[in-house]
């Protein structure tokens, strides 16, 4: 187990190395004099603090943009490994500080939708599997399909239109109300919570479908297995069959995938956060990407690549932990 974990970790590091190489080459090949323009723009900003040449030297020192692509990559890798990610161009503070400022909002938002997703999707999925081909099954199947197929931006706009414009229940975007500063501590919490409702709802609706289908599929698989037939044959009450024999076994793949998606809670919801102006890491990175903020983008891409690899690793390990039949090799 330990050996496997170490092996997978080393393996992930290699993958990460190549992923970042691709990302770095993309950045490296930005159109000619893009960096010069950017540095000039940064230097001319109020409170830039650094001159044009300083920005450019900074950049070259950190990213090795003036060296060859491979040498530059290693230079970047070296500085990044020492924990020096530079200053964000868009946010004009150190990248790590901006990360620290934003990531928790993303985490809370994702956590809310994660909990809602589990609470809604698993019971519905099990119900659909229990009564296959019933109306409820059809309904959940169609709902799941819609949920998978809806474009995030359309759902977000639709929710905004209905709940903000037409009903006026929530603000269109942002994280705080107008009178936020005058509210009490509790009031402030409620205010922010209220602003998290629509984005949370968006994320939940979009993620419920996938999990629901997954639950249904696995539950059906379990219900068709021999031991369920045996359980039924020996006269175990149907309730007990479902809750004890079937559900527990359905949990194996569920726990595996859900565990694997845990790191993803930190990766931020790029589009949802942007559309609702939630100052999470998705929002920050989107703005950085659009404005060509290389330091922050490189950091963010590294971060989510690590999260993806971590997710895969966790899910594989969990598989072995939860299901004793599986032996890692």
């Amino acid at each position, binding site marked *: 187990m330990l050996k496997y974990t170490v092996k997978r970790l080393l393996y992930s590091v*290699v*993958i*990460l190395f*190549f*992923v970042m190489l*691709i*990302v770095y080459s*993309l*950045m490296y090949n*930005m*159109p000619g004099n*893009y960096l010069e323009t950017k540095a000039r723009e940064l230097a001319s900003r109020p409170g830039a603090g650094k001159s044009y040449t300083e920005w450019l030297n900074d950049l070259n020192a950190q990213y090795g943009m003036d060296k060859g692509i491979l040498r530059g990559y290693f230079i970047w890798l070296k500085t990044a490994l020492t924990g020096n990610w530079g200053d964000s161009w868009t946010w004009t503070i150190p990248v790590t500080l901006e990360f620290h400022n934003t990531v928790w909002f993303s985490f809370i938002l994702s956590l809310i939708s994660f909990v809602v997703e589990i609470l809604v999707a698993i019971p519905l999925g099990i119900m659909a599997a229990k009564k296959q081909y019933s109306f409820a099954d059809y309904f959940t*199947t*169609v709902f799941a*399909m*819609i949920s*998978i*197929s*809806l*474009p*995030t*931006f*359309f759902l977000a*706009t*639709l929710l*905004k*239109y209905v709940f903000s*414009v037409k009903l006026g229940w929530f603000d*269109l*975007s942002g994280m705080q109300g107008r009178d936020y500063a005058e509210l009490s501590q509790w009031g402030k919490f409620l205010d922010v919570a209220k602003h998290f409702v629509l984005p949370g709802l968006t994320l939940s609706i979009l993620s419920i479908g996938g999990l629901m289908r997954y639950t*249904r*599929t696995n539950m*059906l*698989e379990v219900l*068709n297995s021999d031991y369920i037939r045996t359980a039924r044959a020996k006269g175990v009450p149907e309730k007990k069959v479902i809750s004890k024999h079937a559900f527990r076994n359905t949990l194996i793949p569920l726990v595996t995938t859900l565990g694997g998606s845990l790191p993803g809670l930190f990766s931020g919801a*790029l*589009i949802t956060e*942007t559309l609702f102006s939630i100052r999470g890491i998705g929002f920050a*990175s*989107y703005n950085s*990407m*659009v*404005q*060509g903020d290389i330091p922050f*983008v490189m950091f*963010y*891409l590294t971060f*989510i*690549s690590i999260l*993806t*690899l971590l997710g895969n690793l966790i899910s594989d390990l969990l598989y072995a932990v939860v299901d004793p039949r599986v032996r890692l090799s």
Partner: protein
Amino acid sequence: MASYNLNEVLKKKKKSETNANGEVKLDDVSRVKVLSPTMQVFKRFIRNRLAVFGSVVIIVLFVFCFLGPLLYPYGQKQTFYKYESINVKFGVATENTSYTGYVVDPSITVDVNANSYMTTYIKELLASGKTRTNKLADDGNFYQVDILGDNVVAMSQRGDVEAVASFGSSVVDVATYDAVTRSVKYKGEELGSDFEKKVASLKGNSGKFTLDGVEYSYRRGTGKNYIISTSKEGFIYSGAPLSSDFEDKAEKAEPGDLFSSDGIEYVVVVNGDTKTAYRVGEARIAKVFTSYVIDLYDNSVKVTDEFRNNALLSAYTTGKFTADGKNYTLVDHDDVLTIYDESGKEYGEFSNFIIRRSNGDDTIEYEAKVHIREAIEDMQDKGLQTSQFTTRLPQQTADGQYAYDENGTLLYDDESEVRVKQTDRNYELWANQVTYVIDRFAAPSTTHILGTDGDGFDVFARVMYGGRVSLMVGFVVVLIELIIGVIMGGLAGYYGGWVDNIIMRAVDVFYCLPSMPIMIILGGIMDAMRMDVYRRLFIMMIALGIMGWAGVARLVRGQILSFREQEFMIAAEATGIKVKDRIFKHLIPNVMPQLIVSATMGIGGTILTESTLSFLGLGVKHPLATWGTMINSVSSASAMAHYAYIWIPVGLLISFTVIAFNFIGDGLRDAYDPKGKR
């Protein structure tokens, strides 16, 4: 053996057993008919209601997007215009304060400088409170400026100028001393030996000395000459001395003033301490200057010079004038000169306001002009910045033309609201006018089924063209994914070993690659390069394809790994079939069902990605339509609230398309694998 076909045999059997009473036997064709695998899949597929729904949606969508534009009259980049009554700045009124000169007598050549100094002369004259002055010009003539009344000034030339006398304290040269010959040459009377002695001792370039109470000054001339001069009071005549009446009047006259003595007119000009009296000839009016602007009742009539000049010159005298053979009367109504024709009808007026249409045309009706002028004067009196009144403006038809009745006379709208707004020195005139404008955000109607967008494009047409792009992107990207994925997966799965290892590591890398952020960055870069829309589309499709092949490769490899060990592949190897054929003829067809399912789902996913990118403004760009850009164009908070009829149908269309592809994919999976547990 090879010709054995169960269906054929059964058919033959059926033919031989012509059953008259229609009884179905146990081995009847309809009971034991054997279907081909494809037919089986198809049958199972059409039994799935959701899948059929999806297929119908996709077929309808294809017809709509690819055939629809052929039948629909509008293009995707066709801008629509409309006539709309909107409140526009239809004219500008300016208070004119500068004087413009009109030639009265073309035979008189006016000095250029005198002409250009007229405005200054008029200002000087108005400031001094006098009404007349004379100015000597460079051409030697005098120009007489006469203020005839408010805003009207006449300029007359006085020729035959002759300087008759200079007076006041004038400096007169009395003698020249030649230092070389030591001789004095007198200009006038001789001044005696004392003077000569003094002169002989002069030094330096200039200086002064006093002799017998008279102050002399000297200056060095050319060579060793000294010119000695003194200032002299009294008149110095260039010709014969004139009478004392002249001298009295000349002394009293201020510069520019005209006086006459003994029937001759003189003007005094001051130059330093010296005054000069000129005899001047008769005044002939050369030009008339005015800050008035003429507006005629009938604005189609052109004002002739004769009419304007005669009117202006008579304005403050008789008030009657003749022009072009007709008699007119002119009445001064405080700030305005109103002209009446012979019958006593109002013919036109002079006022200080230039009232023009926004395009500079002087076509505003007389009555409206009078109303506007009165409104502005009222505003000035009250110190207001804006005012509003009703007047009569020409009626307009729905397409912006003027409306005429059957006799061809203009129709007027009596109750036209005009708003006057002061900006700096101008007065803007705002009124509702029928204008030709881009038909932006038109609500759905019979001409535009889904209305128009912010650029005046027909939304329905753009939905069709946008669908083309979206569907095309979906198919092309998936095709790229399939090509790369099948080749890579096929190689990896078939060869195994180090090939498999390398390819699968690449797959791992691409799997881990965060595609959405990379597409956003790519979009940002293409934005910065201001890339052409079609090239962008092309690059985007390739990038999406490259980013997505890993999944296909993994699927193909997994399938092939399991098939490779099966008997039919061993048989294929044993018969010595080429490697290429073994992979592509025997392995890949077996992977096809899985591939088709994943490709169908992939199209939906790609359309989703593309529309998201376009929505963010980083994918396909305006003016090329895609569903994403169409929603993006109304994504701002206010547009979103007002133009729901644009984005809701388009958003639903995207959702329906993706749902339909997913339904088909799901249906195909079930159909291919009926034992599957879904």
